[in-house]
C-alpha cells in the first residue's frame, strides 16, 4: 500500500477463483475454531459411550449370577422369548441415544444459528454472496464431521459393550443385524445435525432453534405412539428416532413391533427422506431472506 497517489480507478490485482473447496476449508476452520465444538463433541461422545458401557457392565454382572436362558416357564404359562437377554440392545440404550440426538442436532444448529445470532452471517454473505454455496459447504463439512463422530460413538459403544458381554452372547459386526445397527446409529448423527441446521436456518435464534429441534426429533416420536389410530402411529413411524429404533433392533430376538410396524426398508427410506428434506430446507430458507 505504498503506491503513489494516482487517481486512476483501481483494478483487480489477481484473477478470481471461486472454488467450492475454498468454502469447505472455510467452514472447516469455522467449525473447529470454536471451543464449543470440541467440548460438545468430546463430552457428548464420552457420555453416550459411558451410558452404554455401564449398561453392558451391569448386565454382565447380573448375568454372572443367573442362568443365561430363563428357566422353563411353569406349566400353563406361555413361553416369553422376548425376555431373552439381548446383547445388542445394551449398545443402543434409548436415553443414551436420545442424548446423542440432542448433541448432534445442537452441533448442527449452532453452526447455523450461531452465525445468525452473532451477526457473523452478514460478514459471511458479504464475503461470499453465493449463499447457497456457503450453506452447501456448511452442510457438507458438518455432515462429514458428524458422520465420523457418529461412527466413533456407535462403533465404540458396540465394540466395548459386546466385549464386556462376550461370555453372554456378545455379538461381532458379522452377526445378523449388527452392522446395520452400528451404521444406523452412526448415520443418526449427520441426520440430526442436518435437521438442526435446517431448523437453525429457519428459526435463526439460539433458544428457539434448540427447543424446536428437540420437539421435532424427540417429542413428536414420543407423542405419536399407540395403536388406536393408524395415522398417529404412522406419523410416529416417520420420525428419525423411530426409524433408528427399528434399525438397531436385533433380528435374532423376538420383539413386539406392534400392529403397524416399520419395515427395515421403510426405516432407511425415513432416514433418506429426512436428510434430503433437511438439506433442502437449509438451502431454501437462506436463499433470499434479508439477513
Amino acid at each position: 500500500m505504498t503506491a503513489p497517489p494516482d487517481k486512476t480507478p483501481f483494478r483487480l490485482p489477481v484473477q478470481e477463483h471461486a472454488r467450492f473447496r475454498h468454502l469447505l476449508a472455510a467452514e472447516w476452520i469455522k467449525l473447529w475454531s470454536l471451543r464449543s465444538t470440541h467440548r460438545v463433541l468430546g463430552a457428548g461422545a464420552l457420555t453416550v459411550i459411558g451410558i452404554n458401557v455401564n449398561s453392558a457392565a451391569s448386565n454382565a454382572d447380573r448375568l454372572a449370577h443367573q442362568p443365561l436362558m430363563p428357566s422353563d416357564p411353569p406349566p400353563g404359562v406361555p413361553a416369553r422369548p422376548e425376555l431373552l437377554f439381548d446383547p445388542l440392545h445394551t449398545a443402543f440404550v434409548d436415553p443414551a441415544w436420545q442424548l446423542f440426538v440432542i448433541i448432534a442436532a445442537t452441533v448442527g444448529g449452532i453452526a447455523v444459528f450461531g452465525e445468525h445470532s452473532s451477526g457473523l452471517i452478514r460478514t459471511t454473505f458479504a464475503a461470499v454472496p453465493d449463499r447457497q454455496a456457503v450453506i452447501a459447504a456448511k452442510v457438507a463439512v458438518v455432515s462429514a464431521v458428524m458422520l465420523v463422530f457418529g461412527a466413533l460413538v456407535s462403533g465404540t459403544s458396540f465394540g466395548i459393550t459386546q466385549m464386556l458381554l462376550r461370555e453372554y452372547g456378545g455379538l461381532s459386526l458379522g452377526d445378523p443385524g449388527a452392522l446395520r445397527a452400528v451404521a444406523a446409529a452412526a448415520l443418526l448423527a449427520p441426520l440430526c445435525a442436518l435437521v438442526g441446521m435446517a431448523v437453525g436456518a429457519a428459526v435463526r435464534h439460539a433458544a428457539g432453534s434448540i427447543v424446536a429441534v428437540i420437539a421435532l426429533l424427540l417429542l413428536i416420536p414420543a407423542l405419536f405412539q399407540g395403536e388406536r389410530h393408524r395415522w398417529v402411529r404412522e406419523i410416529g413411524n416417520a420420525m428419525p428416532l423411530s426409524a433408528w429404533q427399528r434399525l438397531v433392533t436385533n433380528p435374532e430376538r423376538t420383539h413386539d413391533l406392534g400392529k403397524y410396524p416399520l419395515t427395515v426398508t421403510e426405516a432407511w427410506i425415513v432416514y433418506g427422506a429426512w436428510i434430503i428434506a433437511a438439506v433442502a430446507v437449509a438451502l431454501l430458507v437462506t436463499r433470499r431472506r434479508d439477513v
Partner: protein
Amino acid sequence: MDTVIEATELTKRYGRTTAVDRMSFTVRPGVVTGFLGPNGAGKTTTLRMLLGLNRPTGGTVTVDGRPFGDRPRGLRHVGALLDAHDVHVGRTARAHLTALAVGNGLPRRRVAEVMGEVGMAEAAGRRIDGFSLGMKQRLGIAAALLGDPPVLVFDEPLNGLDPEGVHWVRGLFKQLADEGRTVLVSSHLMREMEQTAEELIVIGRGRLLAAQNLRDFAARNTRPRVGVRTPDTVVLPGLLTREGATVRREDDGSYTVTGLPAERIGELAFTHRVRLHELSPHSASLEEAFMELTRESVEYSAGAAR
C-alpha cells in the same frame, strides 16, 4: 468520470415503513465519499442492499455495473465493514480472518498482512470477546482489506475509536482513495466527515437530500450570520430588512442577521445613529448546515431540547 457504485430508484419497505425511498446516487473512485444522515435515515439499509444482504423492494444498486449479490465471491470486489459486532466472539481474530480469506481463495498470508496494517498483529491469537469496540472496528477494517478490493464500504467506522484511531482511519481512507479505490464511508456526524470526505451524499428519512462536493455543500449551505445586540428595537431591524437581510430576534433580546456582512450592518448603524452593544460575525458550521438540511427528516428528535 467513472461511476463505480450506482443506485437507481432504490427502495426498501418494511411493511408500511419506507426505510429507503427511491434513492438514486453514484459513487466514483479516487475520492472518499461520505454517506451522511441522522440515525434512522436509511444508511445501513442502503449499504446492506448494496452488499446483497437485503433485497430492494424496488430499484437497483450495482457495483461495477452488476448487483454485488450476483457475484460468487465478494472480497476481491468489495471490502465491507457494516457492523464491528458482526463476528463470532468465540473465535480468535486470526481464525475469523483466516476463514474469510480461505473461503475467497485468498492466500493465508493476507491475514497476517492486514492484521499488521490495522495495528493488531499482537492481538491475532486472542479471542474476539476480549476486544474493545475500537479493536473490533480495526478487525472489521482488516477483514475489509483482505481481498485488496477496488471498492470499500464502511458503516460508521469511527464509532468506538480513540482519537489516535480516528486519525489513523482518516489517513487510511485517504490513502485508499488516492490509490484509485472507491471509498464509501457512512456517518451520522458531519464533523466526522468534514475532515474525511471529499464528496457527500446526504440522506434523511430514506430520501436523498444532497449529493455534491463537500466544498460546494459548504458554500451553498453555510451562510454567514451576524449577532447584533442593540437597545434599539425599531430602527435597525427595519433598516436591515430593507437592505435585504433576514433578521431574527433571539430570546435574549439580541438579533441574528443573515444576508448582510457585519461591516455593512456597522455602517448602517453608524449612519442612522443606532447604538450597538455587540456586532459579532459567525460562520455557520457544516454541522449546523447538516442539521438544518436534515431537520425535517430527523426521526427521533429530542423535541423540547431543540
